[in-house]
């Protein structure tokens, strides 16, 4: 069922042996499916974008991994970032406060200074205008009244004097600048300033506009520019429109350098920055230390837990103090202690169980040996007895055989249960084993009128396995098939592909009812309790076989349909330590009723594709002409021992199979050449559906 279903997926790569592209594409699809799950944030979208993102992410992966794995790094980094933020915020606030404090005082002092200056300028202008000016003021006053040129000359002088006298009070604490209003620079009213100040460039333009638009004093920050190479410095400028003695307005500015304040501020800034840096670094270090205190015990616990789980049960944590970490340690140690005790108990129990089994074995076997020998002696001599006693002797001997095999099987099962079964694997050729098994089953087959055929034994089918166990499994399967085959053919098929080898035993007998395919492996399960037991199996055979398969890391699975026979498939990994990913033989045979029905209906079928396309291991192996007495298998001649690398185990969504080339002969000419391989998804619906409905029988997965 699932085997067939998955087969169509593999049909893709298989169809076109000459075109590895198809296989690569299928492989990529699988890989994407895998990785989509593995890498979180697997990007959906255009392949280019995905490639780009992957390319970007690749160098970051180690860092991301370290970030994900190292809690200490994470905590320290977070602490650093957050404390950096806090320090920055604090710094800005503090600097803002300090600046305001420093400047406020300066601005107030400057404002009163400037106001005083403006008043003086106004007063001087008034004095000069009214001619009551002291000193040279009288002279100029007359001139101003008579001639205009003379008057302006006076104003120039007056202004220079004004600037001189106003700035003389400051002595470096401030400078004074006068500027004409607007473009009115004629008449000697050119800009002038005290103390080498460059008047025009020291006063911002927008301030001048504001000064000209009103008569109140306005202020602004600026940089005071000097003539003569002296460095400019930050300053406060306060300006007002004032009238000169002639009543014409001019702009008078007071410039207060803020050098001192700026120095204080930068000192505060520097101090704060240094302190902040120290705080951040120290906080980081503290965080590192603190986290270390917590992380170290956690890491120790993790390490010890790992060692515990690796089986070193005596490992304990060191507990010091009474803090939370110590409690963790104590709890951990308690847990470890309990675990150790429990495991010890289990081990003791297991040992006792094994010991018990061994003892029972001995205690039972010794008397059984005596009985067995006695029965044989009696059996040998039965011809001398009367018929009733003779028959009794026969029954005794027969039932002793059965008792013996039952005891042996019971002991074997209990050995598995106790975990005492050991695998002695070595490379064996399964064909040899099959040959031995078939020849051993021949007498029974002859009695039943069954013909056992072996397919796929032209090439060695080698796997690392325990020959004794594999033989036991196969003997069981073949004998079962013959027994339940109702005299029809039994087909043993061998195949190997990828990392797996498989032997499937097909019969055309009563088959299995739905749901029975899993139950056949239950202990003492019988298909039909009313059915006569002809060979008297113990009812443990398939359970032991399943355990044997598991011990190999292999699968033993059953398929069957009522009235259509059954197929049991043993799949083993080629090497003992290799996990199984698929089976070379589909679990549901191609001649199952469902597959045939699909064929008859002309429906596209996975198996159909596969048969045409899948690499055939042995060209010569196929088409064995059927003996005429096998009418039940009309399609068998068409089926080849095809290696189906994608034949999945029971549940199709379990293992995903990456098809591998079988290394054997592919047959490029087989099947419709150039037909596009059916996409995996296309083949899915019809193939996968019965899996869910579990219609003719179901697979059982060994592990």
């Amino acid at each position, binding site marked *: 069922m699932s085997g067939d279903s998955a087969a169509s997926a593999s049909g893709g790569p298989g169809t076109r042996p000459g075109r590895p592209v198809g296989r690569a594409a299928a492989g990529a699809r699988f890989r994407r499916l895998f990785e989509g799950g593995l890498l979180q944030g697997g990007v959906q979208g255009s392949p280019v974008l995905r490639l780009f993102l992957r390319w970007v992410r690749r160098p970051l992966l180690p860092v991301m991994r370290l970030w994900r794995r190292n809690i200490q790094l994470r905590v320290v980094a977070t602490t650093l970032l957050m404390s950096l933020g806090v320090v920055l915020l604090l710094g800005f606030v503090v600097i803002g406060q300090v600046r305001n404090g420093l400047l406020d005082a300066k601005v107030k002092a400057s404002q009163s200074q400037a106001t005083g200056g403006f008043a003086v300028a106004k007063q001087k202008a008034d004095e000069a205008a009214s001619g009551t000016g002291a000193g040279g003021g009288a002279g100029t006053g007359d001139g101003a009244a008579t001639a205009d040129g003379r008057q302006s000359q006076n104003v120039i002088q007056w202004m220079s004097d004004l600037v001189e006298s106003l700035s003389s009070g400051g002595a470096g604490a401030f400078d004074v600048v006068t500027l004409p209003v607007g473009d009115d620079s004629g008449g000697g009213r050119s800009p002038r300033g005290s103390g080498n100040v460059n008047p025009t460039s020291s006063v911002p333009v927008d301030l001048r506009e504001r000064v000209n638009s009103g008569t109140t004093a306005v202020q602004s920050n600026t940089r005071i520019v000097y003539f003569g190479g002296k460095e400019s410095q930050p300053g406060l400028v306060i300006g007002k429109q004032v009238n000169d003695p002639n009543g014409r307005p001019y702009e008078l500015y007071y410039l207060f350098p803020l050098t001192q304040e700026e120095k204080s501020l930068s000192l505060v800034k520097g101090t704060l920055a240094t302190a902040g840096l120290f705080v951040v670094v120290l906080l980081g270090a503290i965080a590192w230390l603190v986290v270390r205190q917590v992380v170290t015990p956690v890491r120790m616990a993790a390490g010890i837990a790992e060692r515990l789980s690796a089986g070193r049960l005596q490992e304990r944590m060191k507990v010091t103090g009474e803090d939370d970490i110590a409690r963790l340690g104590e709890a951990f140690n308690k847990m470890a202690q309990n675990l150790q005790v429990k495991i010890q108990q289990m081990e003791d129990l297991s040992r006792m169980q094994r010991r018990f089994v061994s003892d029972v074995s001995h205690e039972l076997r010794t008397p059984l040996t005596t009985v067995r020998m006695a029965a044989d002696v009696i059996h040998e001599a039965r011809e001398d007895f009367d018929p009733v006693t003779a028959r009794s002797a026969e029954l005794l001997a027969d039932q002793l055989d059965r008792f013996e095999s039952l005891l042996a099987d019971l002991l074997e099962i209990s*050995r598995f249960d106790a975990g005492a079964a050991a695998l002695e694997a070595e490379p064996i050729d399964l064909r040899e084993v099959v040959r031995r098994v078939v020849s051993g089953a021949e007498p029974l087959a002859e009695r039943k009128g069954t013909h056992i055929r072996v397919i796929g034994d032209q090439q060695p089918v080698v796997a690392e396995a325990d020959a004794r166990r594999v033989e036991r499994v196969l003997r069981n399967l073949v004998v079962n098939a013959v027994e339940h085959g109702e005299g029809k053919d039994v087909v043993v098929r061998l195949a190997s592909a990828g990392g797996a080898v498989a032997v499937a035993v097909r019969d055309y007998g009563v088959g299995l009812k739905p749901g029975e395919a899993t139950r056949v492996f239950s202990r003492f399960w019988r298909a039909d309790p009313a059915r006569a037991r002809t060979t008297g199996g113990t009812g443990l055979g398939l359970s032991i076989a399943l355990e044997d398969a598991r011990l190999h890391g292999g699968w033993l699975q059953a398929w069957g349909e009522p009235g259509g026979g059954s197929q049991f498939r043993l799949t083993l990994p080629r090497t003992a330590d290799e996990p199984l990913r698929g089976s070379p033989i589909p679990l549901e045979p191609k001649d199952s009723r469902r597959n045939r029905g699909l064929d008859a209906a002309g429906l596209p079928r996975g198996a159909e594709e596969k048969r045409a396309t899948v690499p055939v291991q042995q060209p010569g192996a196929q088409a064995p002409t059927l003996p005429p007495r096998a009418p039940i298998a009309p399609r068998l001649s068409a089926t080849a021992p095809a290696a189906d690398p994608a034949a999945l185990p029971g549940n199709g969504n379990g293992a995903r199979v990456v098809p591998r080339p079988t290394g054997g002969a592919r047959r490029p000419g087989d099947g419709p050449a150039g037909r596009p391989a059916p996409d995996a998804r296309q083949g899915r619906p019809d193939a996968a559906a019965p899996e869910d409905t579990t219609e003719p029988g179901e697979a059982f997965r060994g592990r």
Partner: protein
Amino acid sequence: MMSFMKGRVLVVDDDTALAEMLGIVLRGEGFEPSFVADGDKALAAFRETKPDLVLLDLMLPGRDGIEVCRLIRAESGVPIVMLTAKSDTVDVVVGLESGADDYIVKPFKPKELVARIRARLRRSEEPAPEQLTIGDLVIDVAGHSVKRDGQSIALTPLEFDLLVALARKPWQVFTREVLLEQVWGYRHAADTRLVNVHVQRLRSKVEKDPERPEIVVTVRGVGYKAGPS
């Protein structure tokens, strides 16, 4: 020496019923059984009866079967067949390593037991004057002796048979199955551990350096062959 008195079998078993039954079967097959039920008395009985073969139960009161086996092997090469209820790897290997030639797992059929006993005794029925060399060993088949530089090496009959089987065809690689058939007389595939253990025992006696064998060489994946002579 033993070949004169064929068919004397010492049964060492504490289970009286089984011992008696063994006696019935052995007598029926023309053997001459004697019995001892205690491990401590087994060695004395062995010295007294000088059997051609010992049937030895592994679980005995007093000394256990392994110990008895070791003691008997220390003074004689007489064939020892273990009766064991345990077919588990360890028990069988321990028994074989302590010197048993073969083992048979309970419950067994009388015919099976008799076949094993006959296979063990068969060897002494076919003397053949023959001299073989293998490596620096000289084997006198009829005289049942192996010598290196004139010094004789004591081998049990089974080990001797094993060595002779290999030495007769030094060019041939023997699979374990073939050796089982030729030396032990098994028709069908049996426990190959028999071969492994006895090759080890043989090597410990005839090799100069058992770690690097030169007389009995392992052919990986196939079996054993006689070393270059």
